[in-house]
């Protein structure tokens, strides 16, 4: 298993390089433009000069190599300097600058991480915690009332999009009942109990929206996979042997059912980093999702490229983790 992991990690490097190139080419090919959102009163020749000042007049490969140099050399060096306080070189390295804000992309991402982790990360965590018991009980008591209600709620939860549930929750809880704010305050600092309560209040609505959506999805996979395993011969054997029902369920069946669940969660965790675009927009959480979508709409290539590439790294990493977990969950799975 160790050899396998090492081999995969080494193979990940060329994979990621190829991915970074394809993303860059795709962004370059896309027909939107960084001057697209400017007022039409700005004349074409000035737009041309703006493009030139962004480096867009350079050939494609030069721009790609420049990004590579900035991402793989300059930014890590800068991080090292910040963490250790050393001075490496003359400190005049070009960092990756966003075209819209003209500030270092990495700083933007660091600034956005807290709210995204609070809202999107927490809701994903909640979804995993809630959905596994729901899935297990639904499968164990298939077609019971609990299962039927669970199926109904999760299907509705998945098929009603977040742009709708978000608005409904705002109208009910912010407008009528005035319980929760509809705008997320990113400047809020948690220092004492009162400010913690405020933080919980302002997170409540977006977290509910996202948790509902994610729970629905994961619970369905847990249920389906549990159902498969409950009918297996080994369950009957174990029952015949008089093994306690709880142990059969939670140790044997659940463990064997976790493979698709691990897959789904491993696919889901990187998406925490890419944020929840629609929900973040509706509640103005302004996390990574909002950063990404404004960058895409504004054709801010350095920002989109960096965000997407970090996202790609996480995907490759978590899919690797999933593959390793398969082997632990089911020792019969061998990769070598």
């Amino acid at each position: 298993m160790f050899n396998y992991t090492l081999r995969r990690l080494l193979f990940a490097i060329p994979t990621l390089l190829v991915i970074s190139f394809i993303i860059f080419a795709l962004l370059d090919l896309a027909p939107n433009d960084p001057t697209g959102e400017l007022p039409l009163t700005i004349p074409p020749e000035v737009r041309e000069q703006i493009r030139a000042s962004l480096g867009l007049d350079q050939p494609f490969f030069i721009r790609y190599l420049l990004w590579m140099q900035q991402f793989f050399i300059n930014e890590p060096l800068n991080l090292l300097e910040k963490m250790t306080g050393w001075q490496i070189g003359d400190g005049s390295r070009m960092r990756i600058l966003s075209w819209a804000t003209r500030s270092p992309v990495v700083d933007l991402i660091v600034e956005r991480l807290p709210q995204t982790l609070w809202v999107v990360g927490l809701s994903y965590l909640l979804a995993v915690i809630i959905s596994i018991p729901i899935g297990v009980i639904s499968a164990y008591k298939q077609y019971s009332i609990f299962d039927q209600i669970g199926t109904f709620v999760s299907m509705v939860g998945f098929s009603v999009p977040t742009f709708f549930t978000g608005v409904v929750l705002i109208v009910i809880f912010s407008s009528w009942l005035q319980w929760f704010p509809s705008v997320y305050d990113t400047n809020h600092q948690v220092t004492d109990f009162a400010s913690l309560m405020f933080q919980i209040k302002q997170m409540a609505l977006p977290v509910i929206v996202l948790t509902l959506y994610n729970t629905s999805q994961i619970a369905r996979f847990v249920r389906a996979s549990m159902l498969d395993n409950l009918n297996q011969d080994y369950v009957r054997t174990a029952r015949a042997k008089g093994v306690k029902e709880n142990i059969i369920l939670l140790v044997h069946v659940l463990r064997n059912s976790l493979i698709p669940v691990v897959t789904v969660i491993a696919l889901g965790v990187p998406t925490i980093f890419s944020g929840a675009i629609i929900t973040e927009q509706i509640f103005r959480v302004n996390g990574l999702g909002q950063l990404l979508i404004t960058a895409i709409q504004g054709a801010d290539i350095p920002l989109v490229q960096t965000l997407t590439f970090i996202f790609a790294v996480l995907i490759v990493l978590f899919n690797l983790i999933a593959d390793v977990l398969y082997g632990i969950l089911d020792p019969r799975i061998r990769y070598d």
Partner: protein
Amino acid sequence: MTDATTAAAPQPPARSLTREIWGQFRKHTGGLIGLCVFIFIVLAVFVGPYIHTIDPNKIDIRAKNQGPSVLHPLGTDNLGHDMLAQILAGGRISLAVGITAMLLSLVLGTLVGVISGYIKKLDGPLMRLTDLFLALPLLPLLLVIIMLFRDTLRAAFGPETGIFILIVFVIGITSWMHTARIVRGDVLAVKSQEFILAAKSSGMREWRIVLRHILPNVMSSIMVSATLGIASAIITESALSFLGLGFPSDFPTWGRLLFDGANFLQINPSRVIWPGLAISLTVLSVNYLGDAVRDALDPRMLKR
């Protein structure tokens, strides 16, 4: 000679197998209700316009934002479009897009998943390809695809069919990765079980092993992907439309009606209730259908 025997031998059991599956299916109350609701929805959106004959794009500005009435059973929107006609017309597009795109992504995903789970040599490359697709930013990808292919397809198939093909293709190729990863995980687990080894040692052909033993055992995950896939295809289509990358604005779809209606929630709640209900009902009925089909196909259930 060999052909004749192989062709003749499985015939009788195949017929009874179909009957047996149908028998299993009938026992599944949820599945039957799901089937009925689904047929009802399909009939409604295809036959409905012959009964409720108002043109969905007919504008009657004096009758805007109305509640339900005899003339407009589901009320009207802010341009005076009849909501019932819009929902019926929207259903045709949404159902067609949802089901075709889901099937495309399911077939692609299952194919990639089974191949990479079953054939070790192809596992690495195929999964790295999956990683690539997962990492691609959707919106720029769509912009590029539409820039490259829209005019060609429009010239070849006309504006409506052209956009339909484009959207189904786009949703299909950007949503197969989850299914592929999940199916692969299941295949990896199933592949190492004893009955597969037994089948292999008995000299069964590889593709028959896949069809007979592997696929039925990963069916339940595929079914869940299918139901979730319809819902996300319908929603993704609406996202494409309101980004200006989908159907022209005079082609109503359920997702789009829901999106446009969200701001009118307080003025005219029926603008969001009906399209929302239509999407949810479709997904629910497909879900129960899927449950029933899975139960009916389950090899262990048949044994009982």
